[in-house]
C-alpha cells in the first residue's frame, strides 16, 4: 500500500513522507521505552511494575478510598483547579489589562505584584490555613495564588506591546479610547492572553496537587499522600501516572480552545 503511494513521488517528497511517518511513530516508541525501563527496574526490587500499578487502579475501582474511585479524586482536583481558574481568568485578565493598558496603574502596582510573584504559592499555605482552615476555599485560594501570576504577566505583556500601527489605524478612524482598547488592543493581545491561560492551567494543576498533599480528604494529591503514609507504592505511581495524563490532556484542551478562539494565530498551512 505505502509502496504504491510513494511510487509516484519524487525522492525528496518520499523522504518527507517517511520523515512524517517517523514523527508519528517516535512518541509511541518513547512511551514503550519508558514502560520497558520501568519493568526492568521493577524486576528485582520492591518497586511496583507497570502491571501492579495498573492492577492498583482496578482495585481502586473495587475498593474506593474515601468513597471515591480515581475518577472521583481526579474530578475533585479538577473542580478546585477550575474554580481557581475561573477566578483567575476573570480577575487576572482584567488586572493584566488594567496594568498593561494604563501606565499609571502599571507604575502603581508593578513593584507589589513582582514581590507577590516571587513568593512561591506553597509559602502561603500557613497563612491561608491560619485564616481559613482546611476546607475547599483555602485550597482553591492556594491554587489561585499559584496560578494568577501567569495570567497577569502574559496579559500585561500583550497589552503593553500592541503594535503602534494598529493604534494609529484607530486614531485615523477617530476611534475613542474605549474602542481602541476593546477593538484593537485586546484583540491584538488575545494570543498573549491565551499563552497566559495555557501557562496558568498547567500551573494550577501543579499547585492543586501540592495543596492536596498538605491536607485534604480527596483529590489526586491526597492519594499520593495516602500511598506514602501506608507504604502503598503502586497507589503513588498510579496517581503520578494519572497526574501526567490529565496534565497532558489539559494542555491539549487549552491548545484546542486557543485555535478555536484565535484562528488567526494558526500558521499558514502548507
Amino acid at each position, binding site marked *: 500500500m505505502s509502496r504504491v503511494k510513494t511510487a509516484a513521488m519524487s525522492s525528496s517528497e518520499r523522504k518527507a513522507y517517511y520523515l512524517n511517518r517517523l514523527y508519528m511513530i517516535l512518541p509511541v516508541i518513547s512511551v514503550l521505552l519508558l514502560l520497558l525501563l520501568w519493568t526492568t527496574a521493577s524486576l528485582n526490587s520492591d518497586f511496583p511494575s507497570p502491571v501492579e500499578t495498573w492492577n492498583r487502579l482496578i482495585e481502586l475501582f473495587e475498593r474506593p478510598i474515601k468513597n471515591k474511585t480515581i475518577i472521583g479524586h481526579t474530578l475533585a482536583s479538577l473542580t478546585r483547579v477550575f474554580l481557581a481558574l475561573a477566578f483567575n481568568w476573570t480577575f487576572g485578565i482584567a488586572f493584566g489589562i488594567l496594568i498593561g493598558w494604563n501606565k499609571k496603574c502599571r507604575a502603581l502596582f508593578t513593584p507589589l505584584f513582582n514581590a507577590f510573584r516571587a513568593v512561591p504559592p506553597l509559602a502561603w499555605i500557613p497563612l491561608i490555613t491560619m485564616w481559613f482552615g482546611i476546607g475547599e476555599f483555602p485550597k482553591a485560594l492556594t491554587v489561585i495564588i499559584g496560578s494568577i501570576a501567569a495570567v497577569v504577566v502574559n496579559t500585561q505583556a500583550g497589552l503593553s506591546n500592541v503594535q503602534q*500601527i*494598529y493604534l*494609529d*489605524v*484607530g*486614531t*485615523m*478612524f*477617530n*476611534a475613542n479610547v474605549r*474602542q481602541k482598547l476593546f*477593538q*484593537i488592543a485586546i*484583540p*491584538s493581545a*488575545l494570543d498573549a492572553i491565551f499563552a497566559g491561560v495555557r501557562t496558568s492551567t498547567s500551573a494550577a494543576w501543579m499547585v492543586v496537587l501540592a495543596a492536596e498533599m498538605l491536607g485534604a480528604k480527596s483529590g489526586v494529591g491526597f492519594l499520593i499522600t495516602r500511598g506514602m503514609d501506608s507504604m502503598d507504592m503502586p497507589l503513588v505511581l498510579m496517581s503520578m501516572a494519572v497526574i501526567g495524563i490529565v496534565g497532558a490532556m489539559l494542555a491539549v484542551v487549552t491548545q484546542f480552545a486557543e485555535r478555536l478562539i*484565535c*484562528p*488567526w494565530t494558526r*500558521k*499558514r498551512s502548507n
Partner: protein
Amino acid sequence: MNAEKQDYKVVVKNLTKYFGDLHVLDNISFNIRKGEFLCVVGPTGCGKTTFLNLLTRIYTPTKGDLYIDGKPADPKKHNLAFVFQEPSAMPWLTVEQNLRFGLEIKKLSKKEIDERVNEIISLLGLEPFRKAYPHQLSVSTAQRIIIGRAFAMNPDLLLMDEPYGQMDIKLRFYLEDEVIRLWKKLGSTVVFITHNIEEAVYLAERILILTNKPTTIKEEVIVDLPRPRDVTSPEFVEIRKHVTEQIKWW
C-alpha cells in the same frame, strides 16, 4: 483670508518637524485645493510619511500649523482615510471584518456597512479571500485590504502612502484607475505619495517634489493632461522626464 481658506481642503503653514535633533521638515507651506489630486515625490526618509502623520495628528508639529477645511487638523472632525505604507491590516480580523472595521468604529448602520463592504470586495476582487486572515494572503492582496478599508470610508480626504509599491504592474494599473474613479465619483481630495514617477504623472493634477532633509519643497509641477492619460504621449513623456530630471540630484 477666510474666503481663501474655504477653497482649500488643506492649508499647511510654516510646518516644521524635529524628531529630537533630527530636522525633518523645514518651514514648509503649501495648500491643497478642494477636490485636488496631489502627488508627492521625494527622497527616501525626507519626511513624506511624517507629513501625513502630522495631518492625522498621529504626530504633532514642532512648529507651524495644519488646517483641514479651515480648522486645525483633527481626525475627529474630518472624514479622512489613510492608507499606511506598512502592512496595517488587523491580523485578528478576516478580510471582510477588516473592511468593516472603520465603518463599525464610525457606527454606521449594518445595512450601510454591508452594502459598502460588498461593493469594495467586488471592486478589489477580494471575494475569494472574504473569510481569509491577512497572514494567509500575499503582500499585495493584504495591501488591497488596506486600500479597500480606506475607500469604504468614502473619505473626503484620502491619504495614500506608497499604496501600490508592493504590487505587480497589472494590479497597479488597475488600482491607479480605480483611485481616479473613486476620486471623481466622491470628489474627494487625494494626497498620494509615491516613488514611481510615471505613477505620479499618470495620477496627479499637481506633483510636489521634495528635497532631502531638512525638507522643503523643491518644485511644484502642474500636470494638465486629459484623462485617461496616455503614458506614451509626447506631453506625458516630457513631464515625466522633467520630474526625473528634478530628482536626479537626490
